């Protein structure tokens, strides 16, 4: 077999997968968004009706707001956390591997198992968190400070906070990527900084941050996209979209329900498309802002 043919053969499964499982479905989603489809009757084109309905749909509005707020809070926290971990644990010290593994461990736990743990941890009555908070309290329902501990899964805002807290532990992937990046930076720059009497903050601001900026930006985009999808399992498993009404219904859950529970595939596709467009917009904005900010890095 000729060389050329072999190379093509190497790429074929992947290309096939890309087209069949990513490109084609993406296009279909785009098309489905303009139809009403319940899998039984053939899809009926209905123009922009789905989108108009979405804009009026109260639940979608709530879901969208929830998703955006979640991303706005969780993404920066996660990124800062991953960066902090990477900078704390990048030196090649004996035994540092154990610390690194510990930090990455929550990320490998299967989503559903992870959700179940927090279901337990956040239980207002039995869960270890509230047990700890109530420990030194006066009665069996108040904390050491005399107020009620957060009711977590039974109150809307507490539930949203719970989902955010859950997302803060799964920063393993970002951590490893930033770790490797930091290790790849030339050590001489840091030695030079030592000679020039730069403070730790100065070193971070002038050397570490600018040099890691490209990867940070990439991770920011990826985490934004990821955060807007990740909420699915926790929302389904831990809070079931509640507590009422819909306080932890995020867009992925909204899409899932409309598609697989209400059998409105077209409507779900429209929501997906809207979300995707919004995500793209956010990522683009992030890129623009960081680009401008980077110019100001120069001394």
């Amino acid at each position, binding site marked *: 077999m000729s060389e050329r043919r072999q190379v093509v053969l190497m790429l074929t499964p992947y290309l096939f997968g890309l087209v069949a499982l990513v490109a*084609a479905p993406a296009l279909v989603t785009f098309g489905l968004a303009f139809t009403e489809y319940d899998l039984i009757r053939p899809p009926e084109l209905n123009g922009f009706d789905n989108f108009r309905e979405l804009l009026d749909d109260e639940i979608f509005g709530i879901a969208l707001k929830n998703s955006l707020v979640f991303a706005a809070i969780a993404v920066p926290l996660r990124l800062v956390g991953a960066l902090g971990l990477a900078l704390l644990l990048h030196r090649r010290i004996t035994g540092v*591997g154990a610390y690194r593994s510990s930090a990455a461990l929550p990320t490998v736990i299967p989503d559903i198992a992870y959700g179940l743990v927090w279901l337990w941890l956040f239980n207002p009555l039995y869960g270890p968190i509230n*047990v700890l908070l109530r420990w030194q309290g006066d009665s069996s329902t108040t904390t050491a400070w005399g107020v009620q501990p957060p009711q977590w899964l039974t109150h809307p805002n507490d539930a949203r906070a719970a989902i955010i807290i859950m997302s803060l532990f799964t920063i393993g992937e970002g951590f490893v990527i930033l770790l490797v990046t930091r290790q790849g930076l030339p050590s001489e720059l840091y030695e030079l900084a030592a000679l020039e009497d730069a403070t730790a903050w100065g070193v971070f601001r002038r050397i570490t941050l600018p040099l890691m900026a490209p990867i940070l930006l990439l991770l920011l985009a990826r985490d934004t996209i990821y955060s807007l999808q990740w909420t699915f399992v926790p929302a389904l498993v831990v809070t079931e979209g509640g507590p009422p009404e819909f306080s932890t219904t995020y867009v992925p859950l909204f899409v899932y329900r409309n598609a697989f529970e209400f059998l409105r595939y077209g409507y779900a596709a429209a929501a997906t498309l809207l979300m995707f467009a919004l995500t793209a917009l956010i990522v683009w904005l992030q890129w623009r802002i960081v680009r401008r900010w980077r110019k100001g890095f120069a001394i």
Partner: protein
Amino acid sequence: MRAGERKWGGWRQPAAIAVAVAFLLPLWFMVSGSLREPGLPPPRAPELIPSPISTASYHEAFDLVDLALYTVNSLIVVALTVPLAVLVASLAGFGMLLVAGRARVVLVVFSFAALMIPVTALLVPRFTMFRWLGLIDTWVPLIAPALLGLSPFYVLLFYWSFRRLPLELFEAARLEGMSPFGMWRRLGMPLVRPVTIAVALLAFIASWGNFLEPLVYLFDPDLYTLPLGLRSLETLDRTNYPMLLAGAVVATAPVVFAFMIAQRYFLHEDRGAGWLGR
């Protein structure tokens, strides 16, 4: 000869310890919670280790749903998915290296773009497609993404690592008449072992823990994978925390085990950034 820094400085070690403890807490509570006796009232004080310790919850979990079957199912699916994914991803990554110029750029850009598309956007059409093919309620939709290498990310990872190898190596092999497949098998793969291990681990984690796709595609309980089994546990007895956590432990143990073995290759202190390409 330059030695690496081998000592913690000042506040770093306490911080690292605090961090490690914090991140280990979920796992700790998973295990300790699963060992509680079912049906007990809430503890007065926080307890790190339950007393009395009881494995009753594990029996309950395996009794309520056929957890053993689900575990086996998951193992089969993973055993098929992971090797396939690693194979496809490494071949594709290598192929991208050999393909020159424009085609390569297109492939890389395409892969990046595919990475950015959220899975939820593809869920509905994929479902429609598999339904049309009559493959709903089988494992095929779960394994099919392995054709993608499971994720363009793994393909890019391989590509990037192959790219860091010295070009002369492959040129010399070519001169000696080695075929592309030969180069992949004898030169490329042996030299990127840490990456292969990393991808295998990531693929294992993704495939083993996959919840969304089994949820959508599987209806016959005999075909359920473990995550779906846990979901069943939850819908059947939502407040029996020890039992739920027991299920969680069963689902988590293999992944943690695999992780502990594989992490030596890229989280150990002796590994600098070099493992990605050398």
